[in-house]
């Protein structure tokens, strides 16, 4: 008989269980994939860095993932126990012993966990192949991904299977026990608006304070740098946001419906008389879920935003620092060419540009000092002859304008757009120059800043040192082997510049030292003669791809988790709630109107967290003075669309379930 009871209650809630099982199976599949990927030999072969740290990161991620999944499973698994509340109490009333009921609940959960794991482990096999291919694609690797699950990993997964099943079943059994101890009183929740309205107002105050706090935070980060104050502020903002949202939900959601219900002309017209009360009741039950989902969605969106900016920043920096796969100067070009010939590299582009190095002095805002440094000069027409992607990251310059290219200070706030009054030795003062960050041959090939000047200025500029810079582009890399690289590495420090500064520029000079000086003065600068950047590019692409992989995996998982929580909250109505919808139909309410109530319930449940999460994310981004570019809006759009898809699907399932009850 017990088997029959379990079978029947599983059958009764099959829609909800199916969603739960699929969500769990997805989590298990991803977990299994992350675990088994870390030991996959084809990844190890394809990605040298996998052994050193990417593999460890993937294991760490699997732990984070498992942690989140456990929270999800415990939280959502509890929904089902709650749903069977009445049933369990009835069992006990009918004379079933308490421990028997608890065991029933235990085995029910075990069965569900069993199914989830079976599907999840099958999923691991599929996911590994699929995700492995995605990972390789994102990491720009042309390897064939082979599926592999080591015996140790399989054993590990089975152990987790066993323990987690016992753990979750135990937790649900415990929850059942609590229900039986408390007895079957359905506590009608009172409106208590005298508590709710002040709480809601306080929530709004908290949200405003959080906003003010984040503006203050930006100011403090920029002005004091590293100190414990910003950390405290971030903590405050987080707490104020999280609790503020809860209080606003707690205070206003039911109050608004309450208020509408009090307006008789609204409430007494049509189905509203029922739907307001019904929706209010449902919202009461779901406030903490809505809150939970809102905060997690906001967190996910904020994370996506910052990852996006982080990625952009790194990508931008990378491009401004490494425009060519290989670069050299006039002293090293011969050796490099020889080695390239030996390696049979497929050269698709070779660039060379004459530059002059001279002394310059100007006031630097960020250091608030006057600096005297060597500066590289390049003519405007030479600059334009370089590949477009170098100019892309710099502001446009006309033939009579000056462009100063220097390191990005990396501050969040925008850099100054212009530099003024730059003195150059034995040449006219440059009154005004635009500022850019993208170095033509990579920042490592120029010491200090580089100045793009009008052709005429360049021709008449007396140089302290003349040099020529070279850059190569290849198809499928430079193919230099380790021995060749070792040989080239010796030429890295090509020559050294020693600045002898005497009160003014005219009397100062740059001295070339061919050998590495014994001691590095602050006025000795290294001119690097050889830079192999292709390797960095590869690594950058790999790490970037891996990063993208992890972030998107987590956001998809988060989306599925949150969506399924909301769907389950909608599906798992109390018995008396679905009975009421049936009653409406019996006393002559049109089906479309009942459908309308279900739709409203769905819309409210999905839209409220979404809107709040979006508002929080966007206001956070704006207070960090981050502009929201199109691409990011596209990402948000994708998130919203997926979310809405969940809403539509859960509406369909929900209505389907109710209709089935109608025809019973």
């Amino acid at each position, binding site marked *: 008989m017990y088997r029959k009871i379990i079978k029947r209650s599983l059958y009764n809630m099959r829609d909800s269980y199916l969603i739960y099982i699929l969500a769990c199976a997805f989590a298990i599949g991803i977990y299994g994939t992350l675990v088994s990927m870390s030991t996959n030999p084809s990844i190890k072969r394809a990605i040298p860095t996998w052994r050193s740290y990417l593999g460890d990161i993937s294991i760490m991620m699997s732990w984070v993932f498992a942690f989140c999944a456990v929270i999800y499973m415990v939280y959502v698994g509890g929904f089902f126990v709650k749903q069977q509340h009445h049933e369990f109490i009835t069992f006990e009333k009918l004379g079933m012993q308490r421990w028997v009921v608890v065991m029933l609940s235990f085995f029910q959960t075990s069965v569900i966990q069993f199914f989830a794991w079976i599907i999840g482990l099958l999923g691991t096999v599929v996911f590994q192949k699929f995700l492995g291919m995605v990972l390789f694609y994102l990491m720009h690797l042309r390897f064939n991904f082979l599926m592999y699950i080591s015996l140790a990993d399989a054993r590990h997964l089975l152990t987790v299977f066993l323990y987690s099943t016992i753990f979750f079943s135990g937790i649900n059994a415990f929850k059942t026990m609590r229900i039986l101890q408390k007895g079957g009183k359905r506590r009608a929740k009172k409106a208590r608006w005298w508590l709710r309205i002040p709480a809601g107002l306080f929530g709004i105050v908290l949200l405003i304070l959080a906003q003010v706090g984040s503006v203050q935070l930006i100011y403090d980060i920029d002005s004091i740098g590293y100190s414990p104050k910003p950390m405290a502020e971030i903590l405050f903002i987080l707490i104020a946001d999280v609790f503020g949202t809860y209080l606003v939900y707690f205070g206003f959601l039911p109050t608004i419906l309450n208020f509408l219900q009090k307006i008789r002309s609204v409430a007494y017209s049509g189905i509203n*008389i029922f739907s307001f009360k019904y929706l209010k009741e449902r919202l009461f039950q779901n406030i903490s879920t809505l809150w939970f989902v809102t905060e997690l969605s906001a967190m996910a969106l904020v994370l996506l935003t910052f990852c996006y900016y982080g990625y952009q920043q790194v990508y931008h920096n990378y491009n401004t620092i490494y425009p060519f796969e290989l670069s050299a100067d006039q002293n090293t070009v011969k050796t490099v060419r020889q080695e390239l010939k030996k390696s049979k590299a497929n050269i698709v582009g070779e660039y060379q540009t004459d530059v002059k190095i001279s002394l310059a002095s100007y006031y630097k805002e960020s250091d608030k000092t006057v600096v005297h440094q060597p500066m590289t000069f390049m003519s405007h027409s030479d600059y334009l002859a370089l590949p477009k992607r170098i100019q892309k990251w710099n502001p446009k310059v006309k033939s009579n304008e000056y462009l100063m290219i220097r390191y990005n200070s990396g501050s969040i706030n925008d850099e100054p757009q212009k530099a003024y009054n730059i003195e150059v030795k034995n040449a006219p003062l440059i009154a005004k120059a635009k500022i850019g960050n993208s170095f033509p041959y990579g920042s490592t090939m120029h010491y200090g800043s580089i100045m793009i000047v009008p052709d005429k200025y360049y021709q008449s500029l007396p140089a302290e040192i003349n040099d020529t810079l070279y850059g190569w582009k290849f198809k499928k890399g430079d193919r230099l082997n380790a021995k060749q690289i070792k040989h080239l590495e010796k030429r890295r420090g090509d020559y050294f510049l020693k600045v002898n500064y005497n009160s003014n520029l005219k009397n100062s000079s740059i001295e070339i030292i061919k050998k590495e000086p014994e001691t590095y003065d602050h006025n000795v600068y290294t001119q690097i003669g050889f830079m192999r950047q292709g390797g960095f590019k590869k690594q950058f692409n790999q790490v970037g791809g891996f990063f993208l992989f992890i972030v998107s995996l987590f956001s998809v998982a988060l989306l599925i988790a949150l969506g399924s929580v909301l769907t389950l909250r909608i599906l798992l109505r109390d018995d008396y709630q679905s009975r*009421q919808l049936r009653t409406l139909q019996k006393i*002559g309410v*049109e089906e479309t109107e009942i459908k309308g109530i279900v739709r409203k319930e769905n819309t409210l449940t999905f839209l409220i967290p979404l809107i709040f999460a979006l508002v929080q994310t966007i206001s956070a981004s704006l207070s960090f003075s981050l502009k929201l570019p199109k691409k990011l809006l596209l990402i948000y759009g994708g998130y919203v669309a997926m979310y809405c898809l969940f809403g539509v699907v859960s509406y369909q399932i929900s209505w389907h379930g109710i209709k089935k009850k109608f025809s019973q």
Partner: protein
Amino acid sequence: MQIVVKNISKDYGKKKNAVHAIKDISLEVEHGEFLGIMGPSGAGKTTLLNMLSTNERPDHGQIIIDDIDITQLHDREQTKFRRNKMGFIYQSFELLDSLNVKENVILPLALSRSHKKLIEERFNYMMNLLNIEKLSQRNVDELSLGQRQIVAAARALINSPEILFADEPTGSLDSKSATILLNYMQLVNQREKTTIVMATHDAFTASYCQRVVFIKDGLIFSEVVNPGNRDKFFEQIINMQRTIGGGNYFNVSQDY
């Protein structure tokens, strides 16, 4: 004639295990009549009422109410028809737990978007008539079964339906509450000239009607008209029950 039923039939289920709930029934109900439908459990009483009240469609035959063939109406029109003309008392009350007594009672008027003033007026009148004014702010789960049945009746009657359908309205009431409710139904029938069609398996309940139709296995078996004396009528009904089938047959209720 308000309701004319011509040769309706209704089957449930697929070919193999089909149930002929209604085989062939023809029936006429006059304006202001209080008609009883009796029969053993499974005879098809509920099915017949559901078809009369447009909750279900017959497979064959016509149902004409106020010269309109309701079997030809679309779902939407049927719903409108149902809302405007009909009231229902179900055996299981079908009250909404979320709403209090007042909201439950005025629901039909609110659904048809009546004016607020009219709603209040009708509500007070109804509560007065049925003598349940003091219940109006209570929640449904604070009511006794008898009180619930009367509230359900108040809801059925508030928009002064021309036709009231009652499916075993006394099924879950003790005899005292049943008497009260039946008296009210009679009162409404006389005062408001409401046509009432009531299904029951209980002879005492049926004795409040003006005419009782007996059905068995989806067919009309016979009918008895009230001679004007309830005790006599009650005896006639009991006799007819004996003719149809065993004595206990009627006391078994299977309806939910």
